[in-house]
């Protein structure tokens, strides 16, 4: 990692002192870039005058790779987009393919999809909260949050054998039915998780230093959130009540009773708290879904492994942990998609970084970046 001073240019200060702007190259490998993001930061003393994210270090050409694979073979690729929330890209892609090929999904599979996605939301938010706490130096909060995530990862492992890239949601259903006693263990988890959440709330968000570090930092107005295309907790932290689970009520979400937490100040603190409260709501959804889940098959019968939809295109979106995740699939009639395009929420949210970080100190930059919760697998694709 090179940290050389790239350029120095004179900055005119209000006083007579000659000042020089320092260029700090943060990343692409840095403790708080949450992956491989490079941010070129211009600092005047400690104050950031310009922060420019440089992306593409994790670009693997996934969208292009999709064009050379059958519809079923694309699913494992979608795992690698948002590797903190693999289930979302799985599901969003499968919804688009199901729409394109008019595949009906059994009801039990829809319930399982909702359950795993809400679990994924908790796991992803735990990662976000833990790492943004670590960015402010609260090392133990990071461990506590990851401990909670581990419980979910263990349940996923029981369900589909994988801990990170699940390949679980498939066109026409899900890969495996829940094993014996899994829903009971799920119930144990949600009960324990609520206690852990309130503990983390008191430990971190109740702490006077954490409040001082996060309140008023990276303030995003509701208008900006809308016009920059922000979504998920980033938009909701600014008071934009926008959640596809409510406003596009896909799948079986209309059957569940849950709230959409929103913030009011649009700062890093509100975004973080929004994630925390969403975990409570996800627990509620999981409990209702586990109680209502009907018996039955989890895959559509008689679906060919070589899905060949009629020529046409389909777009579908779901609410991922980071926001509105959209997938656009174009078919020319063959067994392979002609084009697959992902609308990744993390990419849109990351675009806010220069605006939010400017004028804050270098220490706040990592707080702002952490509060946007980008996952670079999804940003770079």
């Amino acid at each position: 990692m090179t940290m050389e001073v790239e350029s120095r240019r004179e900055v005119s200060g209000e006083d007579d002192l000659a000042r020089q702007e320092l260029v700090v190259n943060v990343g692409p490998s840095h403790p708080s870039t949450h992956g491989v993001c490079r941010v070129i930061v211009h600092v005047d003393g400690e104050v950031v005058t310009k922060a420019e994210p440089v992306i593409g270090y994790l670009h693997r050409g996934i969208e292009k790779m999709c064009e050379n694979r059958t519809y079923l073979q694309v699913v494992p690729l979608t795992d690698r987009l948002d590797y903190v929330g693999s289930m979302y890209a799985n599901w969003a892609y499968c919804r688009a393919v199901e729409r394109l090929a008019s595949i009906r999904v059994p009801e039990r599979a829809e319930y399982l999809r909702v359950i795993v996605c809400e679990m994924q939301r908790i796991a992803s938010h735990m990662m976000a909260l833990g790492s943004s706490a670590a960015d402010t130096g609260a090392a133990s909060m990071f461990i506590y949050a990851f401990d909670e995530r581990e419980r979910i990862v263990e349940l996923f492992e029981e369900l589909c054998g994988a801990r990170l890239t699940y390949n679980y949601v498939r066109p026409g259903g899900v890969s495996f039915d829940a094993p014996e006693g899994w829903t009971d263990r799920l119930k144990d988890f949600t009960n324990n998780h609520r206690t852990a959440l309130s503990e983390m709330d008191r430990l971190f968000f109740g702490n006077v230093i954490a409040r001082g570090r996060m309140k008023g930092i990276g303030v995003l107005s509701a208008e900006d959130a809308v016009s920059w295309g922000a979504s998920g907790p980033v938009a909701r932290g600014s008071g934009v009540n926008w959640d596809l689970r409510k406003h596009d009520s896909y799948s079986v979400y209309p059957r569940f009773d849950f709230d959409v937490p929103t913030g009011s100040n649009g700062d890093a603190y509100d975004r973080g708290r929004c994630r925390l409260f969403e975990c409570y709501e996800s627990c509620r959804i999981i409990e209702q879904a586990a109680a209502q889940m009907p018996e039955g098959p989890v895959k559509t019968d008689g679906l060919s492994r070589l899905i060949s939809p009629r020529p046409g295109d389909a777009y579908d979106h779901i609410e991922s942990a980071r926001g509105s995740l959209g997938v656009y699939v174009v078919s020319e009639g063959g067994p392979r998609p002609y084009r697959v395009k992902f609308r990744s929420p993390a990419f849109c949210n990351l675009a806010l970084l220069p605006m939010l970080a400017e004028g804050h100190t270098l220490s706040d930059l990592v707080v702002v970046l952490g509060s946007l919760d980008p996952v670079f697998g999804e940003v770079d694709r």
Partner: protein
Amino acid sequence: MSGFLGGLVFGLAGGITIALGTIMGVWAERKISGRVQMRLGPQEQGPFGLLQVPADTLKMMLKEDITPRNADARVFRFAPYVVFVPVAMGLVVIPFAVGWAPLDTSIGILFFLAVPSLSSIGMLLGGWSSRNTYATLGGMRAAAQMISYELPRTLSVLSIVLLAGSLRPLDVLDAWRVWWLPLIFVGFIVYYISSVAELNRGPFDIPEAESELVAGYFADYSGIRWGIFMMSEYGGLVAASLFGSAVFLGATRWLPGALGVIVFVLVAALIASSMIWIKWTFPRMRPDQLMRTAWKVLTPIALVQLAVVGVVVPWL
């Protein structure tokens, strides 16, 4: 004993004390942080993982000692000693028992406050000579922070000096009375907080803030030179705890004779452990918040404390 021989003996004893203190400090940090984070901490190396630190030290000594190509090599290599030596020197004036300190001097308290803070020069040198933007920022932060926290720390210690009427640590220990405790309690809190800040430890570890500056002023150091930076941090932790225990709380006088020394060490261990506990619980402050705390909160409190003591002293 002749001057040279005496100096040699004290030097060796001091070296052993600081080495032992550092080893215990590192070990306690690993164990306590392990417990705080629901882990076990080291346990395979010797009983209770006690040999973990010697193993780490050996590893650091064997690792390559890298000097970056762009660095100002002589200053870069020299800086760790400038950090370590003043911290180690601070230990010599601490009264380990009633009537005995390694170095009995009439300006002992002044010495303890002034000499270890010279290490900020070493941090600045290390950060500046690395030719690394992170290290430069870390070095600047370290200097600014240590200078700011010098003031409340000195002011809080002055209350004790005023009460005892002497700058000689042994006199302070002799003059120490139980009723001082409630009187200087606030001053002790100020001393405690500003000591944590002086040591650059969490929640005030902004010079080495790993999530922003990777490792701050010692980002480019490796091997034993990095180890010396670590050693001075723990040496400072031990010194601040021992000084707080003996001079501030007078723990040596709580029980008579040798028992007093045991109490003194236990209280110091308690202070050091709580500093470690705080580090692993709290988030880190921002540099400007840190400065505000020093100048707008701690310094006025320490001044009020000093004024209160000043009102009481003439009535003694």
